[in-house]
Each structure stands twice: as C-alpha cells, then as structure tokens.
C-alpha cells in the first residue's frame, strides 16, 4: 500500500486540539506533505467535501447531519471536541430573564445552521416555549456583538471569543452548551475523512487519527503551552485562548469509542442519536427534505480507524 502524494486537511476556525496537532507538526511526521486549509464554518467544509477538495476535515453535528442526509462521501472517524461553556446563551442581565419563557417576545440571535441554532430551538422546545414566540434572527457572532452593544438584541447563543464581549457588556450566561449536553443534547465537532481517501490509504487514516490523539494528549497534559499555541494560531490574546479552552472538552481517545461518543464498529454510540435528533430538528425547520433512520446515520460514523490506532 503506497502513501499519498500529499494530504489536504481542512480545519475549523475554533479551539480544539487540532490546532495543537498543527502547531506541533504531528501529521507532518508521517513524511507526507500536508496542506492546511482553514474553514469559517461547517457549511463551507461541506461544500469543499462535495467538491472533493479535502482529504480530512471537521464539522459540527448540524452540518455533519446535513451532509450525511445528503449522502456526502465522508465518515466521522474521531471526536474533535465536545462543546461546553465555550458556546453559551447569554442574556441581558437588566432584563430580568429568569427562564426561557421570559424570552418570549424578545429578540435573540444565533448563527443559523450552527450547533447553537440547533440548541437554542431545542432548549426553547424543552422549556415549553413555542420557538416562533421568540424573534430569533440569524447573526454571526461578531455581528451579534455589534447588535448587542446597540441593544438590538436581548439574548444571543454564540461562542467565544465574542461571547465574552457580550458578557462584559451587561450580559450573563444563562445556559451553556455543556448543560444542554447533560440534558441529552450534546453538541460536538467530529473529524471526517473522505471515503475515497480512506479506501485507498487506510493506514494513512490510522496514522492521522493517531497523531490527533497525540494532540489531544498534549492538550490535556500541557494546558499552559497549549494556551500559547492557541493564542498564536488564532491571533488572540492568551486570556481569550484560555477561556475558550476551558469551555471546550477534549475527549481522550480511549473514551471516544465508548457508547457516549462514537461507540465501536457495529455498535455506534450516542453520536448517531444526536445526528438523528439534529436531522429531525432540521426537517422541522424545513431545511432538510427528509430524515434517515438511526442506522442510516450510524453508517456515517466509522470508529474502526480509532480502534486500530488505539491498538485494540
């Protein structure tokens, strides 16, 4: 089995151990030239996948569900990160918002198509609030800050580092993505590989996952150094980088193949359930024409490379 001439890795504009892997050059150690391409959103990543422009990538659960339902040729192979307080719903502290019900009639923002958009609707539904009672608008995190400062919006479910700007300007954290995960709505980003690439170079995929696992280990063992890496990679102040790290959960590789995450080949874990839930949500939203069953989504998760990498 030969090695590929080069590998294109698409990575997301957010904080996780992949930045460590990139900064430490862990993939480059395999000797294959690596091209790193940064994507602003999972939607852009999906487009690149559809155009067969990357070999590896990363997407959040809504774009992954979307891609799976529309049969994009990729598989989820490891957990990039679980989203905790790095993504939170912040509300205006002086508006006396005690429960989600108090948001009725207020204007709130979330970037549509993102994990927070999904969580926002889910949270409202769970609290018995009709989502249409809240004026939910599509704003990117930076625009949400601008709108917040102008007092155009009273709540926003966005992520760091912009979340902090809202909190510092009269906002308070009301609900975090981590809490939603505990209530059964986990949100995550998953690393994916293109089907063609995996079929041609399975060993390379295993090596890739192995290197990612090293990055995760480094993150967990050397938080201080990681802060510096992240700050440098994203051109952010270290405080922001540190806060963002704290809000993001890295799952050690051995844990990833438990039922709470990917599961094992043949017995896919909770990620498939999340996908099904997300698909149902998107369908309700009118943004997905149809929904597959759980098995359909499970077929898009392939933990076998990870098990091989872990030597099991």
């Amino acid at each position, binding site marked *: 089995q030969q090695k590929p001439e080069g590998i294109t890795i698409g990575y997301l504009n957010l904080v996780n151990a992949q930045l460590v892997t990139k900064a430490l050059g862990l993939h480059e150690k395999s000797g294959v030239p690596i091209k790193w391409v940064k994507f602003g959103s999972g939607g852009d990543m999906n487009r690149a996948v*559809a155009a067969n422009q990357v070999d590896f990538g990363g997407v959040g659960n809504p774009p992954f569900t979307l891609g799976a339902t529309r049969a994009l040729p990729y598989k989820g192979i490891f957990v990039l990160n679980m989203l905790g307080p790095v993504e939170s719903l912040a509300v205006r502290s002086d508006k006396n918002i005690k429960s989600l019900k108090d948001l009725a009639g207020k204007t709130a923002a979330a970037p549509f198509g993102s994990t927070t958009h999904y969580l926002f609707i889910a949270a409202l539904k769970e609290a018995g609030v009709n989502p249409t009672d809240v004026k939910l608008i599509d704003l990117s995190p930076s625009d949400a800050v601008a709108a917040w*400062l102008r007092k155009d919006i009273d709540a926003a479910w966005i992520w760091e580092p912009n979340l902090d700007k809202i909190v510092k300007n009269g906002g308070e954290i009301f609900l975090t993505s981590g809490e939603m995960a505990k209530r059964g709505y986990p949100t995550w980003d998953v690393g994916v590989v293109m089907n063609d690439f995996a079929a041609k170079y399975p060993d390379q995929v295993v090596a890739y996952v192995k290197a990612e696992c090293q990055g995760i280990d480094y993150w967990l063992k050397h938080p201080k150094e990681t802060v510096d890496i992240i700050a440098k990679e994203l051109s952010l102040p270290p405080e922001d980088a540190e806060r963002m790290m704290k809000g993001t959960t890295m799952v050690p590789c051995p844990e990833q193949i438990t039922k709470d995450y990917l599961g094992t080949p043949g017995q896919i874990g909770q990620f498939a359930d999340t996908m099904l839930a997300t698909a149902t949500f998107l369908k309700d939203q009118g943004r997905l024409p149809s929904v597959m069953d759980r098995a359909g989504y499970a077929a898009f998760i392939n933990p076998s490379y990870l098990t091989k990498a872990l030597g099991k």
Partner: protein
Amino acid sequence: MSVVETAREPAQRAARPRLLPARLRAALPRTRLLTALTAATLFALWWLAAHYAWVNPLFLPSPKAVWDAFVRTATVGYQGSLLHEHLIASLYRVLAGYTLACLVGIPLGIVMGLSRDVKAVFDPVIEFYRPLPPLALYTLIVMWLGIGDASKVAILFLAALPPLTISSMHAAASVDPRYVKAAKSLGANSRQLFRHVFLPACLPGICTGMRISLGFTYTVLVAAEIVAATAGLGWMIWDASKFLLGDIVIMGLFVLAFTGMALDFLIRLTERALTPWRFR
C-alpha cells in the same frame, strides 16, 4: 452585419436571400431566433447534466426540481415567507437604498460638477471608499445602524452612491456652455438657468449613471441581506446554500436574474420618459 461591412450595407440588403415569407420574418427576426435557440440549448444542457448526473445533484438539481422549489416557495414559502414576500422585501431594500442614493448622489454630483471646491472636498472621500467591498464594511454598519432594514439599506445605499455621484458630476461639468450663453442672452436668471437649461442638459448623463448604479446595487443584494435578515431573495439564497438546498438556490438565482432584468427595463423606460427628446 458588421460595421466593417456597413459601407456597403444598405444596398446589399436587397441581395439577401429570403427564406421565410415576409410576415414570418417580421415576427421572428433572425436575432430573436438565435437568442431563443441559445436559451433552449443551455436549458437542454442543464437538463442533460442533471439527468445523467454529470454534476452532483446537490449543486445542480434538475430543472424539474427547481420548478418544484419555485412552486413550493411560491405557495408554501421558505422559512416563513412566500416567494413574493421575499421578493418584495428585497425590492423594498434595493429601491430604498437606491432612491436615497439618488436623492443624495445626484445633487451632490451636480454641485461637485459645478464647483471645483466642493469636488475637492468630496471626491477623495468617494474615491477612497468606492473600492471597498461592501462585505468588508458590514460589521461597522451593523454597529452604526443595527440589525434592522436600516443597515441593509445603508449597504445598498453606499453601493449605489459612487456611480450616481460620479456620473452626475461628469454630466454637470460637461454641460455645453453655449446653452448657458444662449439662455443668459435670452434673459434667464440663475434660478431659471438651473431649472430650464442646466438640469435638462445634465439629465442624459444622470440617467446613464442611474442605470449603471441600479445594476451595481443589485449585485450587492446578497451581501446586504446576509446580516440578520429573515426574508429577502438574497437571504433566501444564502440561507438555502448553508443547508445545501441547491434547488432553492438555483430557483433564487433565476428570480434574481429576471427581477434584475426587469428593473433594468424599467429604468430604461424611465430614461425614455425623462429625456424624450433623445428617443425621437
């Protein structure tokens, strides 16, 4: 019939073979036929590409799928608004931004054309911001004007302004001074000069600027609507593209294109109405 040939043209016309009877030829001029043929060919290619899946159907849905999306959006709606509501929301923004730009840009341009001093003040400002992509300005504008229609209208306004101002300026600066002389020697005072001579003399140039400006403004529609919109053609396309809804995207593109052509046609009519002497 080329310009290179025009010198011989009128007489040669007589020699052209006539394949169709006169009445049919009048109804179906050659160029119309060719245009129709082009459209038909492109459509056929699209149909074939979709039918034989030469292209991923996610991005190039079949004509049928696009038509279905059209019907669905027109009757059921997309994200809570019917197609015509999206259209109206967009048209309102475009026309509001454009009209405002006309109200500001045309007088400003005229004054700039008349006075070198005023030009010296405003010209660098306009030349400076003109090359800036509207997308790059957009967070700043949200900050100033919020997430309502105001910020969208402002982006469209900013896009519409430079072509209007620049062409009004040129129009005003190039008014034939002989008309001014003639009017003065006929006893016109400054106010009369402006109203009866200056303004109509500038109108053709201003109309051209209005046409260019409207076309340009229209291409900024999506950029203007990606912020906090809940309806609008541009937003619909943007939103649908996030969710890989190719049929909605293509359908939206068609609606945009036809609306754009219709607006261009309308402004040509306006031009005719405003400067009838040029079309006699």
